[in-house]
């Protein structure tokens, strides 16, 4: 019976699909110049892939960036558009899609004739296999070793693949954002006929490029996939990612033209200026890396269980001075979502200025001192705490600045550097008082950010902030179908999080993506994790 019911639903869906399918769904991206086929793109990597091409088992750009060309998603953010939003989602393995039942069912109509790199046909079974594995469905035949984005699929009740080329995602409650999470570089479809563990050592995908060789610690080489489902793509004959651990050597290789493209999130403002000075024709594009600098305070332990102390910390830090001192202007201030124009959902300058810590520095420091005085501390009688941070220069620089700011309001923090191997374990356990942290977010989307970093049971909610009111607001925005109303809710949540000093955001880092002018159609988005597919890239030589 359930099968018959599913079939009936699918037939009904199929009848209305053409009318309801999103207009952008069946389109391939529009290209502004006439592309030339051929050539190999040489790309920079700062470390080797780990764990291999297993994108679902990691949350690092070092895997997503070189792994993306092998795979396809159901849907993807248009590689030719800078801004990522529901309007810029295009079909990949899904030719069309349709929201049904007031955004409770998401139906994908899959491309036919798509083959895996080993020649096996791609079907709806592969989609069900992948997403059942990700959401850890009880009857799933496969399990990931590490599943960092399980929470993204918490609202998926069932995935049905009754037909070979139709898949239905049944949701517990409406969630328009699910489509955006499916469009992230973090959401490739795995092959059901190979074990998930095999992606740690190789790659069987349906993407525009096939893996030729991965020489450990040296390079990853791809060749064009002749069976790629988008006719005429990819333009390039191949891709070669060079692992270069030393930053000076990486930049020298780019400068010498041995590399065509920098690594996303790698080039600071200062470095881009130096490169541009050395080679004026290099193309530098500033964009948001979707990575924030923030302060985590353990809300479960004194003294940061007291909102006054947390707010004092937030008031004390001069964000704009931090941007200049630590990033030499290569970052922008914002709340818990990247601000406009770098992001889509962030608060504007006017709203930001009204938040704790974003006003005039002298006024903010005075407010911070007043709050500290109320809890019995002052610069003469300071509160002594230990500030933890990761033993990496970008973390330590930020932490040192913050320590100096806190000293001025009566908080004396001693810096404790934590090895990378220990950092996340310590943060997840809440084994700290206060810390200087960096947070990267896959898609620029409220659901991906709020549930992951502020959800009451999320392992990445390092501050252990848990507010019933906020979670209700987060659920409400997630289910809101009216974009304007949703944006208003998202704004309200951001204000509330800063007012509670849940995890004070200090700035959003900018990356200065650099490439040679002959590289065309490689357009950075507002998140570093979503534009590495390379099927539209061509070389004008």
């Amino acid at each position, binding site marked *: 019976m359930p099968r018959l019911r599913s079939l009936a639903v699918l037939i009904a869906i199929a009848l209305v699909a053409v009318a309801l399918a999103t207009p952008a769904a069946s389109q391939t991206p529009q290209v502004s110049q006439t592309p030339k086929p051929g050539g190999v793109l040489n790309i920079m990597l700062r*470390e*080797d892939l*780990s*764990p*291999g091409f297993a994108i679902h*088992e*990691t*949350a*690092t750009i*070092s*895997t997503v960036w070189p792994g993306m060309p092998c795979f396809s998603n159901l849907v993807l953010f248009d590689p030719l558009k800078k801004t990522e939003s529901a309007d810029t989602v295009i079909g990949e393995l899904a030719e069309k899609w349709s929201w049904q039942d007031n955004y409770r069912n998401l139906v994908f109509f899959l491309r036919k004739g798509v083959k895996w790199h080993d020649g096996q046909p791609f079907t709806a079974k592969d989609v069900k296999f992948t997403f059942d594995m990700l959401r850890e469905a009880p009857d799933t035949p496969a399990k990931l*070793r*590490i*599943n*960092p984005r399980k929470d993204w699929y918490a609202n998926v009740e069932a995935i049905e693949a009754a037909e070979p080329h139709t898949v239905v995602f049944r949701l517990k409650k409406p969630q328009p954002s699910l489509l955006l999470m499916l469009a992230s570089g973090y959401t490739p479809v795995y092959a059901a006929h190979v074990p998930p*563990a095999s992606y*740690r*050592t190789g790659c069987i995908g349906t993407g525009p490029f096939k893996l030729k060789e991965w*020489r*450990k*610690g*040296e*390079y990853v080489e791809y060749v064009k996939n002749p069976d790629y489902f988008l006719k005429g793509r990819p333009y390039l004959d191949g891709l070669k990612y*060079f692992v*270069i*651990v*030393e930053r*000076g*050597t990486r930049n*020298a*290789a780019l*400068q*010498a*033209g*041995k*590399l065509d493209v920098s690594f996303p999130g790698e080039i600071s403002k200062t470095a881009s200026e130096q490169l541009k000075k*050395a080679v004026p024709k290099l193309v530098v594009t500033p964009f948001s890396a979707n990575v924030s600098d923030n302060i985590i305070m353990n809300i479960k332990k004194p003294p940061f269980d007291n909102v006054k102390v947390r707010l004092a910390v937030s008031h004390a830090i001069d964000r704009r001075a931090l941007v200049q001192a630590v990033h030499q202007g290569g970052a922008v201030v914002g709340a818990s979502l990247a601000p406009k124009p770098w992001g889509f959902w962030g608060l504007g300058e006017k709203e930001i200025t009204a938040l704790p810590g974003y006003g005039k520095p002298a006024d903010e420091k005075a407010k911070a001192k007043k709050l500290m005085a109320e809890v019995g501390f002052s610069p003469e009688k300071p509160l002594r705490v230990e500030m933890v941070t990761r033993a990496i220069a970008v973390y330590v620089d930020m932490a040192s600045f913050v320590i100096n700011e806190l000293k001025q309001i009566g908080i004396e923090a001693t810096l404790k550097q934590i*090895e*990378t*191997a*220990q*950092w*996340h*374990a310590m943060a*997840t*356990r809440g084994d700290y008082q206060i810390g200087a942290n960096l947070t990267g977010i896959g898609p620029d989307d409220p659901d991906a950010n709020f549930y992951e970093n502020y959800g009451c049971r999320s*392992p*990445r909610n390092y501050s252990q902030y848990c507010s019933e009111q906020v979670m209700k607001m987060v659920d409400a925005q997630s289910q809101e179908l009216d974009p304007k109303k949703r944006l208003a809710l998202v704004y309200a949540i951001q204000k509330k999080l800063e007012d509670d000093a849940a995890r004070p955001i200090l700035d959003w880092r900018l990356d200065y993506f650099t490439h040679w002018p002959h590289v065309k159609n490689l357009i950075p988005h507002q998140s570093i994790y979503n534009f590495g597919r390379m099927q539209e890239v061509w070389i004008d030589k």
Partner: protein
Amino acid sequence: MKTYIAQRLAIAVLTLLGMSLVIFTLLRLAPGDIVDILFSTAGYVSPSEKQAIMQELGMDRPYWVQYLEWLKQIVTGDLGKSYRYDLPAWQIIRPLLPVTIELAALSMVVAVLLGVPTGVISAVRQDSTLDYVLRVISLAGLSMPAFWLGMVIILTLVTWLQWIPPLTYVPPTEDFKLHAVQFALPALAVGYRSSALIMRITRSSLLEVLREDYIRTAWAKGQSGRIVVWRHALKNAMLPVVTVIGIEFAFLIGGLVVTETVFNLPGVARFLVQAILWRDYPIVQNLVMFIAIVVILSNLLVDMLYGVLDPRVRYGS
């Protein structure tokens, strides 16, 4: 001689056994493990998932079991599996060895070719302008870290010629010329530093020998300066020089980290650092053992050379 070598090899086995224990223990004392790093790339930690991975990798077993397992692997030639790459450790280590050995050997050739002649000239022309110039050059070599020199070479090439050496390893069978260039630059950077040390040792050792009675006798017999210096004096002055060369070679095998990194050469030293950062025990343990073996063998070779250079040296009874 054979008995001596056999004794030395027996001691070497005991030394390696001790080394293995030290490596194994130190690695386990370092904070964090591969599972922490894997979770670190995922941005969270789950104790139950961590336990499952520990079990999968065999890291939940008692330390002594893991240690004995590793020793067994060494004896059987199966070096285990890399935690990071999920591949046999030997498959990963094998391509690294020739790169580092070649770079270290070439660096030593550069060091000897530069260091010994300049040391001799400096000693023979003691306190002359040339001596002072050579001593300043050698002092500069000692003061200049090889990685800094390497970076200066790369930046100079990029700035003036818009060229840098290949970014991946070029086998000699594929393109010998490019291969030679790829290794010549780092070998020069490393060899220059080592040559400074060799030059100073050669100079001081030769100065000492040149004041010996038998050298005075050679001069008195009317032998030419070339014969006196190169045949009589230098041979006797070479013992400490050979010792230093042996130590330097052994040091280079593990000490090429930064040079391999700067020149992006996929050798043992660069890979070892990455493996340590990832707590990839099978790779780290076996690479350190490889370095230990090279150190022991080069020491043994130096001891053997003593006998060749000085017939008075006898091995065993």
